[in-house]
């Protein structure tokens, strides 16, 4: 799909996701839910996120962006929107501490 098609396919009013992390998250959500999402749409309010899917999202974020999400970073707010997840990824990448984290 070309960039142009992507733009046309985006729901009305949605800003183009310039951030590659956001693009990748939106792509994952689109593949898994077979519907379009915007970066500021509340995933939990939508009722679309089951507990297994939350785990899937967590695993995707860790695997795709090579970060470890743990302890106090595991909150609903950090996963509520694509914006929030991207911000979490940026913060974790900036502050990688070298402390051995959980796998996977």
């Amino acid at each position, binding site marked *: 799909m070309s960039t142009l098609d992507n733009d046309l396919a985006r729901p009305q009013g949605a800003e183009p996701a310039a951030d590659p992390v956001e693009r990748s998250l939106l792509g994952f959500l689109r593949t898994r839910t*077979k519907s379009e999402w915007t970066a500021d749409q509340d995933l939990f309010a939508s009722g679309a996120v*089951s*507990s*297994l899917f939350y785990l*899937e999202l967590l695993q995707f974020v860790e695997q795709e962006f090579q970060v470890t999400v*743990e*302890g*106090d970073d595991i909150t609903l707010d950090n996963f509520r929107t694509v914006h929030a997840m991207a911000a979490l990824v940026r913060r974790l990448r900036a502050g990688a501490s070298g402390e051995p984290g959980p*796998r*996977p």
Partner: protein
Amino acid sequence: MTAGPVAAARAALTELVGDRADEWDRLGRIPGPVVREASRRGLLCAQVGPEYGGLGLDSGDNGELTAHAGSLCSSLRSLMTSQGMAAWTVQRFGSAEQRRAVLPRLTGGEVVGVAFSEPEAGSDLSRMGTEIRRDGDEVRVRGAKIWTTGAAYADLLAVFGTYGGGAAVVLVPTDAPGVRVERLADPMGCRAAGHADVHLDDVRLPAGRLLGGAGMPLAMLATSALTYGRLSVAWGCAGILRACLDATTRHARQRVQFGKPLAEHQLIARHLAELTVGEQVARRCCEFASACWDEGSPQTGTQTVLAKYVASREAVKGAAAAVQVLASRGARDGHPVARAYRDAKLMEIIEGSTEISQLLLAEHALSESMGAGL
């Protein structure tokens, strides 16, 4: 991971259990020093890394170890499931400080249980009544848990409860004031796994005992722990099937009726074929789910449900076939196939019953095909 540490861990388990699993089943307990030694050698939570004194196995290798335990003694294997589930919960939700404080204890001789079930909250976790409450520098825990695996041996319990509008996990020492552990007298299976009811009567602990993720929806906290638990149970069931297949083929070769070995009777041969298939199918599902775990694949949660569902049902069928073939030779408490028969049935109940697994798998199928509602 090389074969070395897994082979050594397998040998350590074989040595610890020896030929005593029958006796432990009949007595309803494993000697305390055996359990502590298993913990001290890192066998109860073998995925915990060397930085915390653990063996650092990946999920596939820990699975092989778990299956080996399941083939020897499902009670000890149950303790591996709980300890591993608790360790994983601490790794997943604990702070760096909590991991450093707790994980070395779980590879250093201590035992931990995971307290989920309650009188009114079995499959329906939303009915959970245990309350965890922040009170200044303390947390207070009040409630009652049932069927907590390993609690009768435990130094520590990972207790799930409600927390504000969501849920939390708190680490409760079993010797804290207000904690009472009451061993279940007569579990039908995994009789030596130390199942117990736990009473938490306004237990007060330092707030540092509360793991991260506090306030998350209960289902989301629980699913992470259960994913480890389901995979561990699934591998344990693959081990039960291995033990049943071995006992059944041995017996069928030796036992002569109507002038020939049982193995040459076609109806018995069919049991052997079905057991072979059951063992292989269970193992393949476990291997795939563990590969997903080790890759960090988003499929992991669903694949562990599938593996647990398949393996526990195959174990129930396979153990019943084994008892059928061994007949009077196996129909005695303590005998490996009699244990397998009772133990396997419990595996269809814990960590998400067969029916709950079916609902989760159906939900997944719908989400894959329709897109609406995950």
